[in-house]
């Protein structure tokens, strides 16, 4: 193979690889981008079709003679697109046509058209078997009786530079507003303060911190005992632990719920913390890690008269920071994201003890017409784990990989 074509093939191959990878990366990231961008939008912007990525604000302008700033729209003036200010909306316009010539329609403001024969005894004609009211419509200086074919509403637009000039009337909904990119972080303020997300965030943080710390302590001690200490019954208990790893959590919700009822922890944050600090899986992972630790160091320390606790604290734990960090990250994600157990154990009405996932569930119903608020709430729940992940990425991804290989 000659060098040139080899390079071409390699280039094409790499191009293809990056194309596939980027395509999938786009799919993976798009929902996150969508969530963040929508969370900064104003409600009307979220319902716009076609959807747009960047949040936008309608532009308003102070016009002489008006107290409030007026919104600007693109308006067609003699074939030229111009930015005009909306002065008045909901002006009713009727489309009128003579009875004998339905094609000759004219548009008039309904307020300027008088009923034929006066309001009290308006004249009527029969069209297609139906009685239709007649109106006096002025066409080229002549008054012609016509029927109302259809009606719509328009807005009055003026030139903001020259408020005295001729106004333009057109449909407001179909007019393109003048907009610029504008972010609305106040959505976050609103969900945090008004929709209980603040308290929920605090609770989730508290629960997560306590579960992570508690689980690290119990699984470090347990893992060390399994890995390094010989005592009768150890292997039996370990097999027992291993056997339960595969058991799905949903098996436990009913009895655990009844246990919580029995000890009076329903509706309490304690029920989200205490049962979760004892885990067979975490203990297993810690044991797998400690068993790789060289025995000689420990034996030397024992000869020097160090206690097991001192060995664990001064030698083994400092050398196991990456493994501990991994386990902490796992536990963090699990505790932060858990939903079904809080849903079962914490009452919907007891908002003081809601965690984020529960608060989101409530927000979903309460703010169903404001996706910007819902997605701001979702972002509050999703972004902190992402930050933790990005910080601990190095250990984390590697150790997920490791755990998979060992099975």
């Amino acid at each position, binding site marked *: 193979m000659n060098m040139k074509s080899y390079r071409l093939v390699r280039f094409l191959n790499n191009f293809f690889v990056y194309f596939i990878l980027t395509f999938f990366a786009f799919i993976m990231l798009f929902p996150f981008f969508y969530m963040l961008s929508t969370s900064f939008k104003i409600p009307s912007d979220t319902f716009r079709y076609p959807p747009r990525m960047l949040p936008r604000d309608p532009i308003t302008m102070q016009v002489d003679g008006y107290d409030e700033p007026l919104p600007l729209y693109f308006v067609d003036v003699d074939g030229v697109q111009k930015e005009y200010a909306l002065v008045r909306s909901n002006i009713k316009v009727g489309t009128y046509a003579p009875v004998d010539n339905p094609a000759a329609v004219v548009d008039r403001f309904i307020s300027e058209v008088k009923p034929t024969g006066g309001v009290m005894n308006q004249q009527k004609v029969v069209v297609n078997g139906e009685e239709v009211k007649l109106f006096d419509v002025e066409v080229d200086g002549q008054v012609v009786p016509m029927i109302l074919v259809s009606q719509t509403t328009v807005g009055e637009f003026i030139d903001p530079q020259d408020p005295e000039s001729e106004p333009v009337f057109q449909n407001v909904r179909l007019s393109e507003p003048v907009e610029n990119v504008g972010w609305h972080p106040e959505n976050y303020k609103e969900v945090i303060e008004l929709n209980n997300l603040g308290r929920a965030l*605090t609770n989730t943080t508290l629960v997560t911190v306590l579960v992570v710390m508690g689980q690290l302590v119990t*699984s470090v001690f347990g893992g060390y005992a399994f890995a390094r200490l010989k*005592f009768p019954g150890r292997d039996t208990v370990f097999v027992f632990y291993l056997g339960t790893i595969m058991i799905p959590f949903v098996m436990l919700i009913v009895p655990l719920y009844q*246990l919580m009822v029995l000890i009076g922890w329903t509706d309490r944050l304690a029920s989200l913390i205490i049962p979760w600090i*004892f885990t067979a899986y975490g203990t297993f992972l810690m044991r797998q890690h400690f068993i790789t630790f060289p025995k000689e160091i420990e034996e030397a320390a024992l000869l020097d008269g160090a206690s097991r606790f001192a060995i664990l604290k001064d030698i083994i734990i400092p050398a196991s920071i990456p493994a501990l960090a991994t386990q902490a990250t796992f536990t963090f994600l699990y505790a932060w994201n858990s939903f079904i157990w809080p849903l079962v154990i914490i009452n919907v009405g007891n908002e003081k003890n809601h965690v984020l996932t529960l608060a989101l569930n409530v927000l979903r119903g309460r703010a169903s017409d404001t996706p910007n608020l819902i997605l701001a709430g979702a972002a509050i729940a999703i972004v902190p784990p992402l930050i933790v992940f990005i910080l601990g990425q190095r250990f984390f991804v590697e150790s997920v990989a490791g755990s998979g*290989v060992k099975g």
Partner: protein
Amino acid sequence: MKTQSRIDAQTNLILRIHIIWRGLLALMAALSVWMIWARMAELPVWQKILFSLAAILVMVFSSYGAYQFSKHNHSGRMISLTLDYLGFVVCFVFALNVGEFFIGIDALGENFGKGIPYLGITVLGYFLGMLEEYFPTRNNASENSLKTVSKWVMLSGFLLFLWQVKALNGIVYFFGKFAQPGGMVAVIGLMVFGLSLWSMNRPNVAQALNVKTRHEQVINGWLFLSPNLLGFLIFFAGPLLLSFYFSFTDSDAIRTPNWVGFDNYAKILNIKFITLDVPDQLARDVVDIKVYDEVGRFTFGDRGILFAAEDKFFWLALRNTLTFVLFAVPLSVLPALVLSNVLNSKLPGMKFYRAVYFMPSIAAVVGISLVWQWLYNATIGYINYFITLGIEFWNNLFNVAIIDPKIQWVSDEKTALFAIIIIAAWQTMGFNTVLFLAGLQNIPGELYEAATVDGAGAWDKFWGITLPMLAPTTFYVVSTTTIQAMQVFEQVFILMNPPEGPNNSTITLVLYLYRSGFQNFKQGYASAIAWVLFIVIFGLTLIQFQRQRRSSIYES
């Protein structure tokens, strides 16, 4: 004996006191059994039995311990340590409960937000101390000063945190509770058991009881394991057994459950297949509709089979869950396999892509479901918008007129479950990719080199080397993804309104379990569903395990 002659007077006294203490404890246990049955009429029977059993065990072991003590056997020390330790733990938990520590966590939630910044300072202080590890200095003084600064920052941060969360009020409240009789008992218990433990651990006493070096490991082993094991027994193994018991009762979380035998399972598994004369024959013509509901029917030409069940929702849930697994697992595993092979090339930037793919799997499912709910919106959602754009492009390109379907993703019973499948596949794909990638990186490169020498193409290598070598990883990935997929709940619960979806098209087993147990409060029935779910999961894992073993036998 020689060893006994060396016992000094003090140790001898301690041993005597211990023998008395063991006897006293046995007596107290016996007394409490009598108390439970004579004085505590309001306790449920099973609690009475449980407590008496515990008390009888304490009684027996305590007396046996006293006997062994008198013979200076080490097993007496072991029994004594175990009983005193358990007693200490019970008193400790009781003390925490009396001080309303567990309930007080709620009050902490009130003020915790204000304390978070100071907790941040504490963590910062910790990292300051770690700094030295990363930038080692030869100067010992500066190392120590850094450690000191770190210690002070941590301490002050933590104190400020405690002050902000009004910890002092909590502590005062906590200890205030100990003036009550319950608190007194807890404190006295803690002191007595603690004193006993402490005296047992004195070297003199231990030697008097013929301690051996291996005993140290036994004691430490059980001691280190104990917090984990106790919690595991109380919050995992115990409830698991309880769940099994509940599945044979009509438990409703309020009244005392009644034993119903296999009724729950019988109701779940009570199904009927009836051949129909005409495919659209009404169900009420062929089955007793007071008992059975139609789940579905299969037609072959002008004949049909009606599938009826007593609990139609369970079978619908099973159908949906299995459909979900059938699609979601391949959809998240196969792309992951492809992506991992692409990522395994030595090009720059692969770590970045790997991290990006991993991101969906760490985000809260509840949040993710809310995002997708709006992506799926039929009128303004991006998914339909992209479909519209694609169809327009296609129509213009080939001058055809395909009609935009404007799919009603979540409100159409044909697409609702599929919408959930897509989310699940999206969310687990990255995780699986990382697992596969690790498996790929463990395949020795020599195999590929040898194959290249033999003239194998890329495709041959993939089928001949990559796939067989990846079999253990594939087994792990497929089985964990399946186990997870069998428990699908959150996406359905958040995305669908109502959660069971249009015409029960998204009711899943866990959703039905939740519904039975916590909305209709048929908790006995829900437990039975849980065990059936477990058996299905177990069966699926077993099948995969068998297949994996068979394929690995072929390899060897």
